[in-house]
């Protein structure tokens, strides 16, 4: 009995989130759908408790539970990331002017459900649990994307997301089944460690015979991660879903869901190719996977940035920008070194502040003007100066200019890329940053350089305060990145 009770402690955050999700559902029933704000506050409180538990765990020795979950600092880092972004998304939902606040208890349930999925994804070396977590996250995201089911765009977004998600999950599952067939285990550490003397051949044994089956499996599995991170050629869903989904959901997809994809990819590659007991032939193979990722990174950032230039909708523009950022993050992953992974994690942290801020601005602007077209931004900076100045800060950070956290994140990524000898990739990334300057500053120009429009905008003090905090942190950590860097360094995988 103790064998089942004891490991439950390690699962405390997951269990608490599950309880919170069920609680949100029941609470909404008890409120009879009158006003679901209370459910929102309940969600915030539960997230805060989970965050406290997670904070206390940083620095603990890694433990395992049920042979599937690994509780380590790396997982805790991304769990905290998820909880923190979910808290901001919940505040977004609460201050969304386009949302009727009746009968939206399921909104919070699905957000928490998606978070449980992410929790499983980021803390397992077991492909079965990884797949289940991924599916849980996807399933909740599909429903969230179509939450405004009366709207054509929202329904279309959900449908496209389901089709693309189903396809890439199927492809990934096929790859996983190949890996299982080759190695006879679903545990990544076991997979990398087996010498290949036993039957089935094992990864090392298979690689010495022929690399073709492993290559096929690897490409198929990577497709699943690419879809979650919206890396080319699995990015097609991104602009449509980001545009059609309710803006808080878009924020969730752009920040938490993408981070989950990055985390799962880092863990997959780290456990398979960079672990301590990895067979040398497997580790060597990791370098060629890195080459593939480098090519994907270059294509992804170029396509994302070039497409972003032509957009007229702010949400679509940010969607393409998020594709481009997936490309930048892949630079760190492609180096296949601990330092490169660290840079990718730091960039995720930077991404948190600047993207939450940018989407927060979209939400505010959409709520007051009822449109998300860039044209409608004309002169908005004079109507809502503070929030527009914050937006410009986020844009500067997204471009990667000092003195913001985006600059330092990009600097780290470029440095690791150069250290790993990928000069061409860093060159492409630098050119891309110049391209991105153009379209990010088109927004800034619209905000301030066009003649002022008349009229005033309603005030939302809580929301404006949140954006102000994000804005200040973007600059603060840009000037003094040590605190975050130290934190990331404590949470490394390798």
């Amino acid at each position, binding site marked *: 009995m103790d064998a089942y009770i004891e490991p439950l402690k390690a699962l405390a955050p997951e269990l608490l989130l*599950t309880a919170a999700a069920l609680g949100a559902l029941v609470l909404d029933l008890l409120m009879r759908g009158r006003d679901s704000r209370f459910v929102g506050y309940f969600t915030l409180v539960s997230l805060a408790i989970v965050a406290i538990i997670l904070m206390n765990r940083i620095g603990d020795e890694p433990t395992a539970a*049920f042979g599937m*979950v690994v509780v380590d600092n790396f997982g805790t880092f991304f769990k905290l990331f998820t909880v923190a972004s979910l808290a901001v998304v919940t505040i977004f939902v609460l201050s969304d002017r386009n949302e009727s606040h*009746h009968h939206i208890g399921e909104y919070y349930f*699905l957000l928490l459900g998606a978070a449980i*999925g992410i929790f499983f994804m980021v803390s397992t070396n077991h492909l079965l649990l990884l797949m289940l977590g991924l599916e*849980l996250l996807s*399933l909740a995201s599909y429903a969230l994307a179509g939450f405004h089911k*009366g709207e054509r765009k929202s329904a279309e977004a959900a449908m496209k997301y389901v089709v693309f998600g189903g396809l890439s999950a199927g492809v990934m599952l096929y790859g996983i089944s190949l890996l299982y067939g080759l190695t006879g285990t679903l545990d990544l550490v076991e997979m990398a460690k087996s010498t290949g003397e036993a039957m*089935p051949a094992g990864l090392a044994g298979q690689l010495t015979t022929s690399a073709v089956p492993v290559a096929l499996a690897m490409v198929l599995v990577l497709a699943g991660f690419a879809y979650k991170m919206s890396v080319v050629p699995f990015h097609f869903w991104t602009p449509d879903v980001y545009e059609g989904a309710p803006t808080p959901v878009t924020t969730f997809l752009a920040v938490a869901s993408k981070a989950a994809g990055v985390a799962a990819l880092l863990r997959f590659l780290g456990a398979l190719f960079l672990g301590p007991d990895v067979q040398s032939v497997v580790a060597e193979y990791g370098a060629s996977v890195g080459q593939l990722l480098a090519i994907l990174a270059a294509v992804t950032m170029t396509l994302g940035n070039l497409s972003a230039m032509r957009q007229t909708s702010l949400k679509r523009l940010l969607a393409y920008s998020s594709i481009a950022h997936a490309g930048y993050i892949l630079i760190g992953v492609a180096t296949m070194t601990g330092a490169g992974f660290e840079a990718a994690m730091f960039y995720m942290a930077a991404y948190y502040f600047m993207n939450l801020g940018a989407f927060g601005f979209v939400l505010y602007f959409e709520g007051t003007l009822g449109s998300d077209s860039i044209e409608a931004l004309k002169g908005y900076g004079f109507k809502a100066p503070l929030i527009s100045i914050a937006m410009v800060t986020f844009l500067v950070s997204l471009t990667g200019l000092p003195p913001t956290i985006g600059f330092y994140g990009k600097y780290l990524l470029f440095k690791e890329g150069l250290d790993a000898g990928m000069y061409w990739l860093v060159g492409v990334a630098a050119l891309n940053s110049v391209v991105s300057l153009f379209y990010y500053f088109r927004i800034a120009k619209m905000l301030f350089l066009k003649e002022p429009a008349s009229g005033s905008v309603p005030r939302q003090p809580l929301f404006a305060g949140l954006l102000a905090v994000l804005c200040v942190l973007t600059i603060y950590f840009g000037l003094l990145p040590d605190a975050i860097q130290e934190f990331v360094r404590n949470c490394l995988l390798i």
Partner: protein
Amino acid sequence: MEQLVFYSLGLGAVIGALGVVTAKNPILSVLSLLWTFFCLACVYLLIGFEFLAVAQILVYAGAIMVLFLFVIMLLNLGTSEAADFDTARAMGRRLPLVLLVGCTLAALSILAAQQVGGTSDEARADLRSVGSLTDLAQVMFGTYLLAFEAASILLLAGTVAVVMLAKRERRKNAA
């Protein structure tokens, strides 16, 4: 002999799956799906998973299929509903692409299968021993207990999502 049976079952499953997406009549679609499940159940039998085969027939072919049929009959979906979307023509236009992707994947899989370092007879025998109910229970509620529970959360989220999407809106959104 075993190989022959396996390949004919596999072919049957693929033909059934094609039927699901191409059939104009939803009833035909469902029946094709039934056929696919049946072929898969036979494949399970062939590799010695008797319980899984029975469960497949009982749960999928039995319960779930009946539900599908019920829903289709209740909604009274005829061929006319789907007529404005000509599946066959839409498929025809994309046929080259579908064939290209499918053939590439198939060719790669065959190439990969040929190059696999090999599974010994012992490994096969080992596999065959895990077909019984006891083994399955051991695996499900022992080794993979956590995954089992995670799957139940997944199903719950799925249920809530479906209810959320399907229930009637009582009030229009303010926007």
